[in-house]
Each structure stands twice: as structure tokens, then as C-alpha cells.
């Protein structure tokens, strides 16, 4: 349903395309690939189907999923990509770790960290909106600057060992990792609100056709600000989960997430051109992408192979996506 609303907004200018399988086509392919991957792995090694595997997959999903929500919001609203997520993730993880080390209550640390993430998004938005510069280049530059600045500030950090915060990151609830649940909640809530609230629909409309959106009285500036601040908050949430669940981290630790996150967003049907995408489908794409590393282990391949598979999956996905758009455009 949610996707239908988005698809409708995106194809407003192309009558007859309303009932196209916007997003769901990709979703079906991803779901089939996921089922096939699980089936092949289970046939190869029966012990693949175990609680341990589920734990590994859901643990991997958590941080990628939260970041992918931010990335998808940016993509849907026509902002292309937020390449500065590696910086905002580590910046917020560092802030949370330092504040916890000072003995601050986690109840206070969480809102402060989220505010830091929002401030980072605001900084990006200020440059994008007032410089009228493309978000891809702006976030590329702020990531360059941010990562270098982080390297000047610290070399290695971690949240206090033995704290309740770390215990939360390692614990589990209902048999699944604690850090998995906030991701599920975020995806469900944002996916529900995006096509149903005014701000959300504005974001979709701006991504679909900014001139049409402007003509309808939607402020492009306000939308850009809201989207990049939201992306910053998502990164801060991921930063909290990251600080809680990972051990010591360096300023470069966030870089490995960028590609899986972009891949997850694209596999969820988010078009880089904007206006199309369904947040709920991120559950599917992140689930599939996070199953790959675990499955590879069962096939006796090292984690080095993971990148090869991720790259191939991403290329195939964007090729299918591009091919579909080419035929629709005719």
C-alpha cells in the first residue's frame, strides 16, 4: 500500500503507469534471491538453519538497516546519496562513548547523541541549500573533512567496558539481538509515516518532480533540511547501536558500511533519481545482503569473498532497475 502511494506520486506525470510494479518488482527479485540463497545454503549444509545463523544475520542487519533508512530518505526525496554517513556514524559513536565514559546517564546520552547527528545533517543541509550545491558532492566533501578531523581527534575509542550500554549491545531479546529491535521499529515507523504524513509526502513529491512540487507550494528548502537532518538522526541512532555492540573502533570503522547501505537502499527499490522507494522493503534488502556473509562462511569462503558478491548483486540490481526504467520511458 505504502509503495502504491509513492509510485503514484512519482508517476503523476505519466498516466497509465500508475499500476506498474513500482518497487515491488525489485522486491520480488530480492525475495526470490533471498529464498534461493537460504535454500542452497541449507541444502549444502543442514546446520545452516540454526539459531546461531539467525543471530549472526540479524546482528549484521541492525546497523546497516538503520543507516539504510537515512540513505533511502535522501534518495526518495531526490537528494541522491548521503556519502557522509561514515563520518556521522563514527562522530556520534565517539560522542556517545566519551559522554558515557564521563559517567553521564544513558538516558541523557541518547538524546544528546541524536542531537549531534541532527546537527551534522543540518550542516550538510546548510551547505546544500544555501550553496545550491549537489548533495553528492557536498557530502563527499564533508565526509573528507569530517573523517580527517576525526583522525585528528582520536585514533581508537570504545564505549566503557562493562557498562549497561555495552551489555545492551551484546544482549538479546526474544532470541534476537537487542540492537535488531530498534532497527525494526525505525523501519516500520518511518515506512508507515512517509506516505501518510504531510512532510513525508512532500519529500516524495520533491523527489519525483521538484518543479511540480514547488508549483504546488511545497518548500524545497524545508524539505531538504528535514531530509538531511533525518538522515543525520538515523546515522546517530546507528552510531549508538554501533558503539554499544562493537568493540574498539577507529575513525575509519564507518567506511565499510557505506556500500552495503547504498546497496540496501537501491535493492529496496529506491531510485537514485528520486521519487520512488519503499522504506519497508529495506527489511527485505538488508536481510538478503546480511545473509550473504553468513552463507559464504558455510560454503567455506572467507569474508573477503563477501565484497565480490555484494558488488555483483548491486550491479545486477541497478542493471535490472535501469533496464526497467528504459522500457517504461518509451
Amino acid at each position: 500500500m505504502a509503495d502504491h502511494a509513492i509510485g503514484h506520486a512519482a508517476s503523476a506525470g505519466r498516466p497509465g503507469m500508475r499500476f506498474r510494479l513500482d518497487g515491488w518488482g525489485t522486491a520480488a527479485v530480492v525475495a526470490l534471491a533471498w529464498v534461493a540463497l537460504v535454500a542452497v545454503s541449507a541444502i549444502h549444509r543442514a546446520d545452516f538453519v540454526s539459531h546461531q545463523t539467525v543471530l549472526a544475520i540479524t546482528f549484521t542487519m541492525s546497523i546497516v538497516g538503520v543507516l539504510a533508512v537515512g540513505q533511502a530518505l535522501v534518495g526518495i526525496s531526490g537528494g541522491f546519496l548521503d556519502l557522509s554517513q561514515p563520518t556521522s556514524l563514527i562522530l556520534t559513536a565517539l560522542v556517545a562513548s566519551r559522554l558515557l565514559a564521563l559517567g553521564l546517564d544513558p538516558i541523557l546520552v541518547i538524546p544528546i547523541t541524536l542531537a549531534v547527528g541532527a546537527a551534522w545533517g543540518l550542516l550538510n543541509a546548510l551547505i546544500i541549500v544555501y550553496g545550491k550545491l549537489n548533495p553528492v558532492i557536498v557530502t563527499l566533501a564533508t565526509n573528507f573533512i569530517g573523517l580527517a578531523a576525526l583522525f585528528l581527534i582520536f585514533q581508537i575509542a570504545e564505549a566503557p567496558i562493562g557498562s549497561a550500554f555495552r551489555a545492551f549491545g551484546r544482549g538479546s531479546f526474544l532470541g534476537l539481538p537487542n540492537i535488531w529491535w530498534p532497527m525494526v521499529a525505525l523501519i516500520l515507523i518511518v515506512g508507515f509515516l512517509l506516505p501518510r504524513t504531510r512532510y513525508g509526502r512532500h519529500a516524495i513529491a520533491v523527489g519525483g518532480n521538484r518543479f511540480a512540487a514547488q508549483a504546488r507550494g511545497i518548500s524545497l528548502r524545508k524539505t531538504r533540511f528535514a531530509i538531511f537532518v533525518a538522515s543525520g538522526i538515523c546515522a546517530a541512532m546507528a552510531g549508538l547501536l554501533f558503539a554499544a555492540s562493537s568493540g574498539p573502533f577507529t575513525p575509519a570503522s564507518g567506511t565499510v558500511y557505506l556500500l552495503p547501505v547504498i546497496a540496501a537502499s537501491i535493492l529496496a527499490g529506491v531510485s537514485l533519481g528520486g521519487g520512488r522507494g519503499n522504506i519497508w522493503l529495506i527489511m527485505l534488502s538488508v536481510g538478503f545482503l546480511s545473509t550473504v556473509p553468513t552463507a559464504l562462511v558455510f560454503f567455506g569462503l572467507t569474508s573477503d569473498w563477501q565484497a565480490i558478491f555484494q558488488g555483483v548483486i548491486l550491479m545486477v540490481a541497478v542493471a535490472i532497475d535501469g533496464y526497467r526504467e528504459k522500457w517504461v520511458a518509451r
Partner: protein
Amino acid sequence: MTETLTGRPDTPLPIAHHPVRDVLTGPVGSIGITLIIVLVAGLALIGPRFLSASNVTIAGQFVAIPMLIGGFASFALLAGVVDLSIGSIAGVAAAILGALLVNGWDIASAITLTLAACLLFGAINATAIVGFNADPIAATLGMLTGLRGATYVIVEAYGQSGSLFAFHDGLFALTNLMVWSLPLIFLVALGVTAVAAVIVGKTRLGRHTRAVGGDALAASRAGISVARVRTGALLLSALGAGLGGVLYVGQLGAVSRNLGFGLEFQVYAALMIGGFSILRGGVGSPAGGALGFLVIAGAANILDLSGISPYYVNIIVGMLLLAAVLLDRLRGGDAYE
């Protein structure tokens, strides 16, 4: 993606062209002025040692390979198809060459096979982007990841503890050869820039490439094969990255698993500072791009000689990048709203 990027709201008023003013106010002019500022700053902060032959050699050797890769990759930018996989192609090319040398291949056939593999990667990029209409950023990001994984796997298989020892006398001598008291590879990079500048500025091929990048629809209506130009540009970009990887093997004598990691961002930051755009084809000139590399190399060298943390280089690069795109927009480039 291009439809939202190429809309130019108002055409600039027709102004009579004036060769000197055009150069000074154009992208090449502003990057040239920036380079002069860097040189003056270097002389003021470091002294005459900054322009000494030994220092220029060090800086030249450091910048030569990225500049060479950038010279080839700029054709893809001009044609409007950014190739983000160049860093990984350089890495995997070095790994392939290293593995072949370890297995006792002779250098000529090893390099030939390596470059052929790179052309294959370029062809896959082109198939996805030109054939299947995939978004260039997303598709080449996939290639970037896949080939980084391939580099890990090759280095793991033929090397020890994340590094593949692949020293080759001839290649080492070639990459360290000095001609007229400058490193040969730096002169080669300058030569590639000069050839690229002539192709882009003076030949039909260059005009076609710029036309395709500027407006693919208009170019195809004018009878230019958009598919052929973009395929050629992507092949060239992959070939240049492969050459860079081969030269890295010579220069470093070993292939680390992270060789070329993030190189694409370094290269494109320099090219964008020099007036190219990764999002819009048809703009930029090879001379400007080369000046962009020299500005960054100069700034890095100043920090290096002053004993300042190299991380400040990336801060400067980021600031210059923002300044360059802002200047481009004020000059009448695309505004993002």
C-alpha cells in the same frame, strides 16, 4: 538522474569572447591562480627548498600515478558517465600482475593480460551503464566493491599477511627513472594530459565526447552514437586505472590488499577542483584537471615538509572541493535546488 541535473534555468547573456579574460575567469584560470597561491605559500613557509629538484621529484612521484589515472578517467566524466571503480581497478590490476609475476610469468605477457582484464571490467561497466541503462554511480559502485573483494582474494591467495610481494627489477627501474631531473612517470602523466587536452579541445572525438556528456539527446539527434562514445570512455577509464595499477607494482614492489582504496575519491576530488563534474558531463578540461592534482600535491607537500599531520590535506581538499563547485555554480553552472 541526468534529467534533474542538466536543467539550466537561464542561459547566460551573450558576451563577446576575449581570450585573456576567458582564461582568467574560466575554471582553468581559477585553478591556475590557486596553484600560484599554493606555490607562493610553499615558498613563503618552506623557503627555496620547496622548489628544489629533490622536492619536486618527491612530489612528482607521489602525484604521477593518480594524475595518469585521472587523465584517462576524465574522458568518462566528460561523457557523463562517472566511473567510481577506478581505485578498485588499479588495486585489482596490481594484484593480478603481482600474482602473475609470482607464478613466473614474463613481464610483457603479464602486463598484457592484466590490461586485458581491466578492459573486461570496463566492458562490464559499459554493458551495465550503456546497455542496461544502469545509473553510473550505482553500477560502478558495485564494480568498486566487487573488485575490492577480488583484490582481497588474490592478495590472500598469493601473498602473506595482507601483502603480495611482487618486486620486478625492470618495472621498478622504469617507475624510478629520471629524465631531465624529473621522474619519468610524472612526465608521462603530463604527456597524457597534453594528449588528452588536444583530443578534447581540438578533435572531432573530443567534441563528440563533450556533446554526449553535455546533452545526450541532442548529441544523438546530431548523429553522434552516444552508446559508442560512452562505451569508449568507460573502456579508456578502466585501461588508465589498470595502467596505474601496473605502475604501482613497479613503484611499491608489493601489493597490499588495500592498494587503491579510496583512490577514486582522491582522483575525482582533484578533477572536480580542476573544473570537472562527476554529475554532469561535458564540462572541464584535462589541463584544469592536471592543475587540480598539482594543487593538492603542492598542499600535501607543504604540510609534509612542515611536519603537520597529513590528515589536514583531506580537510584542505574537502574545502577546495566545496569552493570549486560553488565557484562553478556562481559562474553559471548547475544550481541544485
